[in-house]
């Protein structure tokens, strides 16, 4: 069945103009179809999709606190199995980067280790946007947030590197892990489709621009997200059964653009331009990553 002409995530919700999260959710659900149960960790998505008396969800939906989404979904999976009703139903979790990489990591890891038949989609806007742009472990090196303030005591912003959550999930040897970018829609659709056909735990890491936290023109969302991949900062790949040696890059830019092009339109990186050597450092890290993985494909 193809549900591309149907909307299971209704428009009219209250996401900020230019928010990428609804694009991701909309397309995941178009591919998943009506036989789907949604588990939603606390975050922007849960807030903007369900302001009383409305809801965007045309599917059964349960919202639980940050750290519990994977565990609640595990319970749903086990209970459906116990009743012999597991066939034909998708269980999909949506969580932000904080709810996934930070507080939700324990239950996510447990879900993966126990082998539940669940698709976890992390929409990664790279900070706690819902509570006011605090850094998360998924915030990239060099980004300003309200808890990685830029000033005389800290010229870099966030001093630590982004937690490699998709690699961590792949290391669980689960059947399918992929990174996606809504600016590369056919690639994203292909991966969601593939994931939903596989039994067992699946993890999809989707980059998701936040105009408020990234500080960019709301009309440029897709362009900026495209730059994330074209500069090589957010590569698109998939790993099956934890086989890192067979990591498949699904998009290889013919000529990677310099990282500045991605940083320039975003206010959260503005301060880096006063320290060009930091940008060079980041460029070097990106180049090293590609040198390591590009030739394998």
């Amino acid at each position, binding site marked *: 069945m193809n549900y591309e002409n149907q909307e299971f995530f209704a428009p009219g919700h209250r996401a900020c103009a230019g928010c990428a999260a609804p694009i991701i959710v909309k397309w995941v659900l178009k591919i998943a179809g009506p036989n789907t149960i949604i588990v939603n960790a*606390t975050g922007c998505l849960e807030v903007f999709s369900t302001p009383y008396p409305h809801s965007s969800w045309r599917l059964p939906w349960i*919202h639980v*606190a*940050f*750290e519990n989404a994977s565990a609640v979904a595990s319970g749903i999976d086990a209970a459906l199995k116990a009743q012999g009703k597991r066939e034909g139903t998708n269980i999909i979790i949506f969580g932000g980067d*904080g709810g996934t990489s*930070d*507080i939700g*990591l324990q239950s996510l890891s447990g879900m993966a280790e126990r082998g539940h038949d669940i698709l976890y989609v992390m929409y990664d806007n790279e900070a*706690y946007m*819902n*509570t*006011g742009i*605090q*850094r998360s*472990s998924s915030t990239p090196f060099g980004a300003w947030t*309200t*808890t*990685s*303030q830029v*000033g005389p*005591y*800290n010229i870099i912003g966030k001093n630590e590197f982004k937690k490699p959550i998709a690699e961590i999930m792949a290391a669980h040897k689960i059947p399918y892990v992929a990174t996606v970018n809504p600016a590369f829609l056919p690639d994203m659709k292909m991966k969601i489709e593939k994931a939903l056909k596989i039994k067992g735990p699946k993890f999809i890491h989707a980059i998701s621009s936040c105009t408020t936290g990234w500080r960019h023109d709301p009309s440029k969302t897709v362009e900026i997200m495209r730059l994330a991949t074209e500069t090589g900062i957010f590569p698109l790949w998939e790993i099956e059964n934890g086989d890192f040696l067979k990591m498949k890059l699904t998009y290889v830019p013919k000529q990677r653009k310099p990282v500045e092009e991605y940083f320039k339109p975003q206010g959260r990186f503005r301060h880096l331009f006063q320290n060009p050597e930091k940008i060079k450092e980041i460029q070097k890290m990106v180049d090293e990553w590609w040198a390591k993985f590009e030739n394998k494909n």
Partner: protein
Amino acid sequence: MIGPGKYFVEGDVAAAYGAIMAGCRFFAGYPITPASEITQAMAELLPKYGGKFLQMEDEIASISAIIGASWAGIKSMTATSGPGFSLMQENIGYAAMTETPIVIIDVQRAGPAIGQATRPAQGDVMQSRFGSHGDYENIVLSPNSVQEMFDLAVKSFNLAERFRVPVILLSDAEVGHMMERLNVPEKVEILERKRAVTFEETTKWGEDLIPPMGRFGDGLELIVTGSTHKPDGTRDTGEPDVQDQLVRRLINKIEKNRNLIEDWEEIDSEDADYLIVSYGASSRPSKGAFMKLRERGLKIGYFRPRVLWPAPEKRLYELSERVKKVFLTEMSLRGYRMEIEKIFPKSVIHIPKVNGKVHSVKEVLSSIEVSI
């Protein structure tokens, strides 16, 4: 840097200023509405004071980090709300058991569960005292203004350090987010923990029942455990007397020092037939109602605990001799009710409000008028 003078800030920011002035140099936290402003203010302030700010991966990690930092010898704090406060409960008991001075700010929001993230409530009053399992005592303070967010943050540190307990500054979204004038004094009174120089000292206590605290890094072979332990810290979960003596002391060091801890505001209670009891944000309209009723000649008093736990029992029992009716105003159906009804068993008129809004003076007045 926070210089002396007048400021116009939110309660959350004032609490961060108070913590810094009290000597807090370590903060570990996790974003949550309506306490994130404390976290952000500490992130900005601590580096300027040679302190350290850590953003943790969740609230369990946040309270754990401040326990670790406290044993490393630094005054430490975290701040949270509703769901985050629930996650911290296990380690509040751990801090009580290991006698670790820490300060936790809970900016209450409406619950249960995720509730109303941006709206105030006072439903954590019982949890703030009984939230962790087992028998223990801690100290809970309740500010009702931006100034008190500052003042009581300072006091929270002093109490935590003096009594070696987890102290909870129990605010709410109204007080945390309101903007008012804050006066920062030149200097605040600061109490430091009794520091043990030798291991021997950590195993003994005087009349106050509080042993001096050792510090990691000083060369002492400290043993810190949440299991039942002897005075020297060694684990002993079999001997009945060890548990008995330990738990009784943990309770008694607060019980016996109540007069040093209890704190309240009391107006016109000497001749009062009626008494309004309230705390935190709901005490503001309650005071307004009290003033109006006094103007009309009603013999009514106003009583506001600034320290909720231990409760100002002695004074309230004295007042119960005379007072005919007590009006308890709070943003909770449960809140402080059990405590006040314990002291005034048959005369409490409860005036709760649980729609995420603070009472208006008019609402308090009309609730009182129908009951007198």
